[in-house]
């Protein structure tokens, strides 16, 4: 592995909706931008899985104030108010920017943006991207390619941030990564860095995200000294498919079960309906489903049955409603969503916590910016449908502009030799040249360890948590980390997927420790964080949890709003 050097003004890590928007903003502000993505842009990342709903207060009776009030109420009052206000006031402007970049929205007969009303919205507030998340990523990707100032490197895996040499300690001066095509370890100096790496939902055995979502950026920021907030706040979507195996991770809309839509339900193994009508909001629905599963009412593969086959609306209405790419995908797998019972369980869907930012995406580390989904505290303890995409655009644009301002006012800094050596070695020590292997990971090791981690996290830090379980989980994570210690994979140049597996599993373990510590600290139940030993919401926890690195230890604390 040789070391290659590159330089840029603004460096964006991650090419989903957030990173692409940040790159566009920085380039339009006049900066040279390099965007790195560990898979191919528009063919990897969470954005592609998005249904495509986006919140913007465009209805004549809606307002920024109502948007803010809904966000705070549905987030159980622990969203950061200034971030939520920024989201509410700038989402509509971002819709126009998106159209300028070529994103298309669904329009009604009069040619107006079609608005839908989702649970928790006091006015219809969701507009819909044509082509869903895939359409969104494709349009933003094309806009970046048209922009002369943006260079995109696909298949580039960032492994860590690099610090500046003294006297600029605690300033980020670049990143280290692996060009997966050539295998070269690459050092990139940048004036400013924007993290846009998405969530970490792969930590849970049941999740509806692609394999990329392991929380790299969270750990990069954490290792560099940034504060993470509300890491216990993960949104569980009620109905993620657990069977058949080839469909694992796809989801079916729990919202469609509402009386006004398809009027279906989720049933237990004996055919008893699990959800009351009117349909409860997401966090309540997933708890009811979890209880039914705990009571042994689940089916063969641990899930409950999503079913709309006996809808009073009639099969034609059902088929019409389900005529969407995501349901046609199920049909290709031999499952007919209009007539079959589909085994589902609550699964990790969105990370509401993350890197602590201000409204400009500043992280508190000089030169380092971040944007949701990997940045947190915009939503609190629950997220309204359509806020995910809106946040990537509003805060992506802001982080991109702030990073470009920083880049215009600051020179490229020298890299800290220690930081560079550590980051280089952290990767090199995972590679064995043929023959020299002492603790070579065998094929079975990593998938098994990963599975073990995911299942224990699901069990103890899933929908229902308590002290004993979280303690147990902490031990398990420690064991998995121990098993990974000194593990190596073969040094191969081109597309070393085994190396990615190993490094990503290590990252998942680190994320797990932060989730466990934060979940232990918050001794109450609020939104998607349910503690069976503290089932009440408590006034004194009207605050964030925060974690920062203190040497090799994580320091957890409550943080005032």
């Amino acid at each position: 592995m040789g070391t290659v050097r590159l330089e840029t003004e603004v460096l964006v890590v991650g090419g989903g909706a957030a990173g692409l928007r940040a790159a566009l903003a920085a380039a339009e502000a006049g900066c040279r931008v390099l965007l790195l993505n560990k898979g191919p842009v528009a063919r990897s990342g969470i954005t592609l899985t998005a249904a495509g709903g986006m919140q913007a207060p465009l209805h004549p009776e809606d307002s920024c104030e109502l948007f803010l009030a809904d966000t705070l109420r549905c987030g159980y009052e622990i969203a950061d108010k200034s971030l939520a206000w920024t989201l509410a006031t700038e989402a509509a402007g971002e819709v126009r920017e998106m159209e300028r970049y070529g994103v298309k929205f669904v329009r009604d007969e009069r040619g107006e943006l079609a608005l839908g009303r989702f649970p928790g919205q006091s006015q219809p507030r969701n507009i819909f991207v044509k082509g869903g998340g895939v359409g969104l990523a494709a349009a933003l990707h094309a806009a970046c390619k048209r922009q002369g100032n943006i260079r995109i490197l696909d298949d580039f895996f960032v492994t860590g941030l690099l610090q500046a040499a003294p006297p600029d300690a605690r300033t980020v001066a670049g990143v280290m990564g692996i060009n997966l095509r050539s295998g070269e370890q690459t050092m990139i100096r940048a004036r400013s860095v924007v993290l846009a790496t998405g969530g970490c939902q792969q930590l849970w055995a049941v999740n509806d995200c692609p394999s990329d979502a392991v929380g790299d950026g969270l750990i990069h920021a954490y290792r560099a000294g940034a504060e993470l907030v509300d890491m216990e706040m993960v949104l569980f979507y009620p109905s993620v498919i657990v069977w058949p195996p080839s469909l694992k991770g796809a989801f079916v809309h729990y919202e469609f079960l509402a009386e006004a839509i398809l009027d279906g339900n989720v049933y237990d193994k004996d055919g008893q309906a699990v959800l009351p009508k009117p349909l409860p909001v997401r966090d309540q629905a997933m708890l009811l489903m979890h209880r039914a599963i705990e009571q042994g009412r689940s089916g063969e593969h641990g899930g409950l049955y999503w079913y709309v086959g006996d809808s009073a609306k009639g099969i034609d209405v059902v088929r019409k409603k389900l005529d969407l790419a995501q349901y046609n995908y199920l049909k290709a797998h031999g499952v007919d969503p209009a007539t079959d019972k589909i085994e589902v369980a609550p699964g990790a869907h969105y990370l509401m916590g993350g890197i602590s930012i201000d409204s400009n995406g500043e992280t508190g580390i000089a030169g380092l910016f971040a944007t949701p989904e990997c940045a947190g505290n915009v939503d609190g303890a629950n997220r309204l449908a359509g806020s995910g995409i809106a946040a990537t655009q509003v805060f992506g644009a802001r982080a991109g502009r702030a990073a470009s301002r920083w880049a215009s006012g600051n020179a490229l800094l020298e890299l800290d030799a220690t930081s560079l050596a550590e980051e280089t070695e952290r990767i090199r020590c995972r590679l064995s040249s043929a023959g020299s292997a002492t603790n070579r990971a065998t094929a079975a090791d990593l998938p098994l360890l990963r599975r073990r981690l995911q299942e224990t996290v699901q069990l103890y830090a899933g929908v229902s948590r308590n002290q004993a379980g979280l303690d147990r989980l902490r031990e398990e994570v420690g064991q998995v980390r121990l098993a990974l210690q000194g593990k190596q994979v073969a040094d191969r140049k081109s597309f070393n997927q085994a190396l990615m597996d190993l490094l990503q599993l290590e990252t998942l373990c680190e994320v797990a420790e932060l989730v466990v510590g934060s979940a232990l600290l918050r001794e109450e139940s609020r939104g998607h964080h349910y503690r069976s030993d503290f089932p009440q919401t408590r006034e004194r926890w009207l605050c964030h949890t925060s974690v920062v690195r203190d040497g090799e230890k994580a320091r957890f604390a409550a943080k005032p709003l």
Partner: protein
Amino acid sequence: MEQASGKIHIKAYRFDPANPDQAGFQSYTVPTAEPLSVMALMAEIHALDETFACRTSTCFKGQCGSCLVRVNGRDALGCVTMVQPGETVTLEPHSKYRVVRDLVVDFSQPQEG
């Protein structure tokens, strides 16, 4: 739960630019009682043999093309192409793009010639 007959046999194309002369097919057997998409199958092969490379990121919709691959001599979306237990399937890189390694291609570069 796996039935004795529950196996999918795969002939997978292997290519490493470091050893282009050794390019060729390798046989794998994946035990499964359930049908699998080609994409799920590729992930299973990678779990059996970590040196086998494939793309794993999915959109769950058959829309993005992350899973483009050649199945039994035809270019296809791997995530919506199903293989039944008992079947044998040949997997090659998608014919339109340059191969990076094994079944991983570079979507930004068309295959030459």
